[in-house]
């Protein structure tokens, strides 16, 4: 099943939503509303609110790096994420914002073991 969703992550045609990472040269990450909606309460609320993002089919993020968002997207689609000493703290903080509770817990545990 997770393989199927991983394939879906590469299927550009069916994607219906854009995540824009704000920087000098904006980066666009394409994805599926339906998947995001059921995996993250942040996105669920965003779609439900029917505010400007759901009308434009695009959200602009100011405080999340491209790498981090790609990691999260991979996690959202496949349930897999790689945590190491390099990124653990950043993952913990950012995952909270997107209500990815499992990752937050996992990262917190990871950090605790190393303090």
């Amino acid at each position: 099943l997770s393989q199927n969703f991983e394939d879906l992550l590469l299927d550009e045609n069916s994607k219906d939503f854009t995540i824009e990472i704000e920087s000098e040269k904006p980066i666009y990450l394409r994805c599926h509303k339906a998947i995001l909606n059921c995996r993250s309460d942040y996105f669920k609320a965003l779609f439900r609110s029917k505010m400007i993002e759901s009308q434009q089919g695009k959200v602009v993020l100011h405080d999340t790096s491209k790498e981090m968002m790609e990691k999260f997207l991979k996690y959202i689609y496949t349930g897999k994420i790689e945590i190491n000493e390099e990124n653990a703290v950043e993952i913990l903080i950012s995952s909270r914002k997107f209500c990815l509770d499992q990752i937050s817990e996992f990262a917190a545990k990871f950090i605790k073991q190393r303090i």
Partner: protein
Amino acid sequence: MSRKMILRVPKFQEPKRMEKSEAQRLWLLLKDAIVEVQHMNASTLSFEELYRSSYSLVIAKRGDILYTGLEEVNNHHTKNLLDKIAQAVDERFLIELNSQWQQYKLQQIMIHDILMYLDRMYVKEPQLKVFDLGMFKWKQNVLIHSQINDRLVRMLLGLIHMERNGEVIDGALMKSLIQMYVDVSLKEKETYKQEFEERFLLATSHFYKSESNLFITNNSCGAYLKKVEIRLIEEEARIKQYLDESTGPKLIKACEDELIANHMQTMIEMETGCRTMIQNDRFNELKLMYRLFQRVENGLVHLKNEFAGYVRNEGHKIVNQPENLKDPNALITSLIEIRNRFEKTLSQSFANNRDFINSVNTAFESFLNENDKLSESLALFIDKKLRGGFKDSNDQEIDVIMNKVILLFRFLSDKDVFKKFYEHYLAKRLLSGRSFSEDLERTMISKFKQECGNQFTSKMEGMFTDMRLSKDALDGFKNYLQTSVEMGKLPKIDMSVRVLTQGFWPTFPPHSCTLPPLLSQYCDLFTKYYCHAHTGRRIIWQTNIGTAEVTFRLPKKTHVLALSTYQMLIMLLFNDAEKLSLKQMAAGTSISFMDIQRSVKPLYSGKYKVLKRTPAVEKSKELSENDIFELNLNLKCKLHRIKFAATSQTDSEPERQHTRQRVDEDRKIEIDAAIVRIMKSRKALIHNDLIVECTKQLSSRFVPQTSMIKKRIENLIEREYLERFPDDRRRYRYLA
């Protein structure tokens, strides 16, 4: 682990202090957005921007600004709404309230979504969650406000009242408004219960109290029951349609109390009530009553007692009806009929409820044992059936009747009395060859066996064995006669003998008589033959239950008379005499005077009279010793063979007495055995305990009288099976 920690902390997440002015800016941004949401203008806002603002405030530990701000905004907003709603008049009120509420709920979801980070990371008990805070403000400032709450509840209850009176109301609106009370409750639906449910239930009880009182006085019980059922269905539907499900059991209970519990006694006693329904077999109405009574506490107890009382009463009438006391067949037939009738009521109306069945059975037990007639009547009933009453029934019908007999038998407390009578009539059937079918006899016996075990039927089975062995013995005897020397000297008569094992058969009262010489010789021959074949056996002749065929020569015609042995002896006397008094008959045959009386009666008073009384005495039924009889030579009868009853058909009182006495004798033995059995295992026992135990052990066969048990204990003490304790006279000790 000695590895060095090298967690990397990202630069941009380094704790940054947020200026107060920055916090204020973010809050104002959010506040404006919330106000926009409250005015349903959310589509131009950016979710991410608002979410990020609240996120930043919380991260910077400025959640308090946000939370208190939100509280104020909500407060302000709901107060505005109150004025708007309260102004609405009449029906507009409910519609306005509802539409504002629906919008408000949506807004609160949206506000919750924007402030999700605050909700998740900042709000801690006892603070309310963002959404709950919204609900609380609505409750506080709108719903339970004096301008709203009372008016709303009154209108809701008014609508429900209208609906109960048959009008159509807007169910969706009701559901939404009633659900509002649930939604604003913080825990355990307390607002709903306090503000709405309590008053609703009170109104319900009130409504049904007056409706039921009015309806039941103006309608039949059946109509009332139907009305109740419909009302209950309606209320069930009401729960589904617009009440909270938690109200269900309470609402139904309130309805049941008013509609059923409060009127149970009336429904049972009223003219068209339970009693009449039972009397007239109104199965459907009773079924409905059962279903409804079942719903309330002790409801079925009332119904059951009423029914059982009726059963007992009906049964009591039947067993005491004078016609039935005279006619055992009618008695048992009526009993089977009412049993069938009540079984039908039980299955069709009372779902074969165990308690109901048991109480009907108890009722049967009580009236069936009201008098001691029943054991004999039941035995006689079967006797009649087995003598040919089953002729026109098929196997299935026979089985049904037999099972009913067993059923009635089960209720008898003195089964031993029944057994004695049954054996008595069985013996008579077998000996007189009047049994209709051996198969049916055996089927009946096997049913008793199933019910009571081997011991109960062993004697009956013994009788059948005797009948078979007698046939063999008789065949052997006939062969023996042909080869016997003495045979040549004797005129041939056809003699048939039945050898009955003592113990299997009821003991017939001993009677003696003088047989004519020829018959005596034959009897001696048989005795000789039989005792030779079976050494160690003794034969006692019971001539009083035998039969004989006698040729009766009239001047113009010859008849064959089928008679009892006694009647034969009497008739033979007329070979040597023209006229005989009863006294002479008794002297000539050595038969007791009473038996003479009983034997002669059918001969001169039946349809065909072979004897006549001289001089003819009209109407005098009692015979005296000196009454004189002579042969009726003018007998007119088309039949060649004339059959006479041996004595009157049913048993005479002395015979019945005899059977009873034997039952008592047997009981003594049973009680002795029971006492000894109990004492042997218990060694020592107090008087009362022994009585109780003994009664219990014997209850499957009969109910022993305490006085009889006492006598048997005394007797056993005399016979040194038991002794009293010297220091405690109430205790007995078993003596090995």
